[in-house]
């Protein structure tokens, strides 16, 4: 892939033509990136969202978040946590109940149209224009963003090449597979050269191969200086891809930091899960906690979770204490999943 040319100062780039410089003025990212590096590109303050209805839903309850330029930021949380709602407010589609969100300094409620010019958005579901071909989707998107016919055409060609979609240029979008449709959506989202790209659950429903390809393109975009905010409920994805992660649950940010910081916060290297079935031994937890080398013991789904730094010599003792009801033992390195479990007592997948 040749994403390398995407935001490089190359004379063919659209922002170097006189017309588009007039059009984009200060907003062209190539010319403003350096001036604005100090400012957070996304700033969320006290965001609350209550969906009105017979039973009102408090989807987001007081979120504060900042994303710096150049970051690959992940919003990690289970289904229904409030990820899409948060992204919805950032991308001007959802109106906040309270709080403010600014994108590149522009308030999304007071100046939504202007804010939209600075961001690219790939929502959770396919929003490609089904009446149009792949090429037309990108071409018309450019037209909406004020490109002339010639520049829109050039930009569409350029993006189709970058995303290896040239052969599909004339395909109707309804015939595309999930992975390809996703690629077209990303190509279209960055067509107007936004400074920030929002991706809501970009890898949901993708096969493993397409997911890896997606991660690749996201990393390339970051290398070109575009900021990416994505949501996911796959902790591996957040861990492997993001420089900074915020864990969200029930509309609240539980913790945020680099994946390493979050994992360190657990204070243990490994988690041992004892599956005990329905048997409940009240003695178990205090006896385990008393063992040297055990950092914490917590009740789990069908047994207990034991946090340790190393397994050295511990396992036989643990198994002895667990007694005859022990059905299974699983041991895992600390992951973002562990962080989530530690904070909520639940599994991300539950």
């Amino acid at each position, binding site marked *: 892939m040749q994403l390398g040319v995407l935001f490089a100062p190359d004379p063919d780039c659209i922002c170097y033509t006189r017309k588009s410089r007039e059009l984009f003025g200060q907003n062209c990212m190539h010319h403003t990136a350096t001036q604005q590096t100090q400012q957070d590109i996304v700033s969320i303050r006290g965001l609350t969202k209550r969906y009105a209805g017979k039973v009102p839903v408090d989807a987001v309850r007081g979120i504060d978040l900042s994303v710096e330029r150049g970051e690959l930021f992940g919003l990690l949380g289970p289904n229904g946590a409030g990820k899409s709602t948060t992204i919805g407010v950032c991308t001007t589609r959802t109106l906040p109940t309270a709080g403010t969100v600014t994108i590149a300094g522009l308030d999304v409620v007071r100046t939504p*149209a*202007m804010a939209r010019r600075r961001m690219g958005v790939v929502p959770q579901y396919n929003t490609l*224009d089904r009446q149009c071909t792949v090429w*037309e989707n990108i071409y018309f998107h450019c*037209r*909406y*963003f*004020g490109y002339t016919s010639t520049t829109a055409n050039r930009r569409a060609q350029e993006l189709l090449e970058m995303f290896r979609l040239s052969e599909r240029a004339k395909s109707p979008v309804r015939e595309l597979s999930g992975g390809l449709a996703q690629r077209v959506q990303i190509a279209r989202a960055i067509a107007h050269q936004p400074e920030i790209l929002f991706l809501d659950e970009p890898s949901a429903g993708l096969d493993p191969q397409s997911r890896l390809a997606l991660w690749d393109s996201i990393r390339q975009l970051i290398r070109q200086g575009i900021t990416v905010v994505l949501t996911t409920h796959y902790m591996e994805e957040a861990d492997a891809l993001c420089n900074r992660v915020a864990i969200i649950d029930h509309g609240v940010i539980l913790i945020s930091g680099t994946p390493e910081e979050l994992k360190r916060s657990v204070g243990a290297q490994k988690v041992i899960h004892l599956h005990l079935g329905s048997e409940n031994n009240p003695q178990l937890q205090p006896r385990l906690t008393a063992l040297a080398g055990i950092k914490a013991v917590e009740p789990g789904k069908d047994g207990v979770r034991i946090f340790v730094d190393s397994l050295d010599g511990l396992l036989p003792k643990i198994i002895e204490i667990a007694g005859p009801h022990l059905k299974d033992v699983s041991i895992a390195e600390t992951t973002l999943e562990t962080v989530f479990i530690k904070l909520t007592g639940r599994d991300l997948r539950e």
Partner: protein
Amino acid sequence: MSDLVLYARAFWGLLIRDTVVLRREFIAFAVRTVMNPLMFVFVFTYLFPKMGQAFQNSHGTSFGTLILPGLIAVAIFVQGIMGVALPLSFEIGVSREIEDRVMSPLPVSLVAIEKIVFSALQSLVAALVVFPLIFFIPATPVEVHVDSWLVLIASVLLASLASGAVGLTIGTIVKPQHITLMFGIVVVPITFFGCVYYPWAALHVIPWLQMLVLINPLVYMSEGLRTALTPGTPHMPAWATLGALFLCVVLLGYTGVRGFLNRVLS
């Protein structure tokens, strides 16, 4: 100022997109526009007179003359339903693809207004396509006489915009799974009680019905065109039809835009 230029460019982009899509579906557009008036005119103003069963009213105007404005009004009206309400209901409720246009850099209300404007353009084309059919096919003479071009142009423009506003309102209110129901409950009565096949004045025989149909926008489209094209037939005064159509555009346009905002923003 520069904001307005950007909005205008985005708006123009939306119009271009709709034009390209319409051009691709021109056959479908032509069929849905032409078939109804073509069949109607052929059967009632060509076949029937040949069979010696021509309708004629007491003033001696031919049925062809009487329904020409009505059929043009229906052609204009149908575009709002077929060209806006139907696709919009689907794009909002099922495919959610309207979202890419909602994310365009212009106020969302302008995305809705673009739908009205484009629908009005479709209605104008439809009126031009249908006119020669209704004029030339009938076996009995059709008397068209334009007293005031201003009234004609204003009537056609306002009728077209009103039809787009009706389409936008229906498209944002009716869920896609209820669209067929909507045809039966809304569209069919609107056309049959839209003073298409008879002038409004003739309804005086049933006074309550004559009053009731006044809530129907199609009445003013038909009567407005009657005033403009066939002043020899009974018709409402121009100020009444133009005023009512203007009100339709404002009220239904406002309702439609509000409905659109409610549906696409949460």
